[in-house]
């Protein structure tokens, strides 16, 4: 990130942190009231350390904003057009895609499918997008990796894996198949 973007980011971070610090200071103050009402010393209040931390954070956030302003930072990057341009850039698109794919894996695939299957789908899509567009070859890589990870961690190391466990009986044999 170039210096002016960094300073612009500093102003935005400073504003968020200032707001957060004020909120923590208010909450910390509220925490001290019941302690005093119960007759305990103010010094033992659970809000005292967070309050002090929030105070220092407030000072540093304001300093960050001032420095950002002095060194040419601005909040123009928060304008809708700038945000859209950032999202449409290659880096923006990839960042969103990677976080989106990880979120889909954690919050959708692992909740609905067995670990092995969810991991295969995740690896397949990820490797297909970021390595090779050869569907069968990538499929083999994803399959081997997901089976290896499931077997080595889930079976050999006995580490409980997230995801649903599928159990079904093989027709005609009565054998129970379990997919972790």
């Amino acid at each position, binding site marked *: 990130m170039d210096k002016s973007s960094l300073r612009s*980011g500093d102003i935005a971070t400073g504003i968020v942190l200032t707001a957060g610090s004020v909120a923590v200071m208010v*909450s910390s103050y509220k925490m001290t009231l019941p302690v005093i009402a119960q007759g305990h010393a103010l010094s033992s*209040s659970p809000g005292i350390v967070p309050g002090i931390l929030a105070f220092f954070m407030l000072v540093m956030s304001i300093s960050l904003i001032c420095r950002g302003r002095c060194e040419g930072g601005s909040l123009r990057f928060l304008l809708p057009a700038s945000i859209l341009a950032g999202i449409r850039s290659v880096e923006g698109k990839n960042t969103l895609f990677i976080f989106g794919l*990880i979120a889909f894996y954690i919050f959708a695939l692992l909740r609905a499918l067995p670990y092995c299957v969810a991991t295969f789908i995740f690896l397949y899509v990820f*490797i297909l*997008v970021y390595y090779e567009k050869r569907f069968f070859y990538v499929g083999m890589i994803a399959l081997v990796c997901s089976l290896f*990870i499931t077997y080595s961690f889930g079976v050999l190391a006995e580490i*409980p894996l997230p995801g649903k466990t599928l159990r079904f009986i093989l027709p005609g044999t009565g054998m129970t198949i379990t997919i972790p």
Partner: protein
Amino acid sequence: MFEGLMEFSRQFGLLLIDPMAIALMIASSFLGILIGALPGLTATMGIALMTGLTYSASKVYALTILMGVYIGAIYGGSMSAILLNVPGTPSAAATALDGHPLARKGLAAEAIWVTRTASVIGTFLGIICLATITPLITKLALNFTSAEFFLLAVFGVLICGSISARDLPIKGWIAGLLGMFMAMIGIEDIHATERFSLGMMELATGIPLIPAMIGFFAFPQIVKALRRGPTGVMPVIEQGEMKTSLWPVIRKNIALILRSTGIGVFIGALPGVGEDVAAWLSYDNAKRSCKNGKDFGTGVYEGAIAPEVGNNAAIGGAMIPLLSLAVPGSPPAAVLLGALLLHGIRPGPMLTQEFPTFTAEITALMLLATIILWFCGVVIAKPITKVLRIPQGILMPIVAVLSIIGAYALNLNTFDLVVLFVAGIIGYALDEMGYSAAPIILGLILGGMIDSNFRRMLMISDGSLSPLYSRPICIVFLVLILWIVLGPLISKKLGGKFKQIAENTGE
């Protein structure tokens, strides 16, 4: 001293007759070297991942794996630095300056041999410092009261913030404060009051450390590696055969090795500072002190030896405050502290009372890891060229999958995955704006210590702050804290004044 040596010998003997421990150490050393060698994977990330994955293992075996990965990864970074000119870990960045030019001169095998030898010597000397200095500091720390512990923790977070900040020192301190604030979430120790948990049951016990650590260290690396789109295979320099023995080079540079060890141990012992700073300072010192200093950067052995000795000696250095004061000396040591706490070991001044053999155990593990590192390094030196050709597009999704297992395996709680994901997003955003994850994690670990010791001190002194400036060790810490905070301002002002005087006098 003699008892300590006997206990160390006993622990080392026990390890040697345990085939499982040896096998795990070999496997984890290989894994560590791979983690260190592969660009994008760091020692800290490797230990964070393995902490989650080894949770169900016994304490000894879990620590065997973690120490193997730690020592292996710090060394492994030099391989990619030499062969790819891309440091595998931040601590190997200085090694690339002379290691890669050596490889381009056709001396890749020699450069790898020299860095391996330097790493093993550095780690070994660091272990000696660990074994001799830790008991002394532990004895001193037995006199610490709440005031000293409070100031020590504040000093740790501040110095880590100052040195690890890539942009402005204030950003390092803000990161430290953020970590400390995160540590305030949940039920506090003294009145059992729930703080900042927003009514969420899952946050009542605080932010889970391991998922947060994995999120902060692993996710930003995954995104940074792939955000510019698919990456091809990086050009790797092929290794030839070693033509001559390089022991004379090592013998000639004994003084340099000892100096770099001193720097490495000292920097490693500073809370949260770490192996990368140790490597850079050792390199800088070597450049100034060696006769061929002007040739540094063109491919000289001294330029590869100094940073490798420095960053590996920092491992022993980082373990000194970790074991004696419960304040980690480097980011990987911070993660290791989390792992120790998970396995029920509470480092600090009481360690010698609660776990009398633990320092000897860890020292023996480190020595075993160092010996095995030498052999693993020899075995992996040739095939590493093939491993380094693994594209990031395959490696990073696997890291993501392992991160998720590591974060989940600890509590089998899906909320931990939410923490992992949120920490990953925040970690990436902060990383982009020049904030380092190390002070956040150090703040998260030491926040509880800061809170409880500050309040305990106030309760004992009837609300007075006098213990902070009336005890000698506290005064030392206060001076150090003021130096960290005001030092940059004073030097800037003085620098400006000197410049003005020079301009006025026409010099």
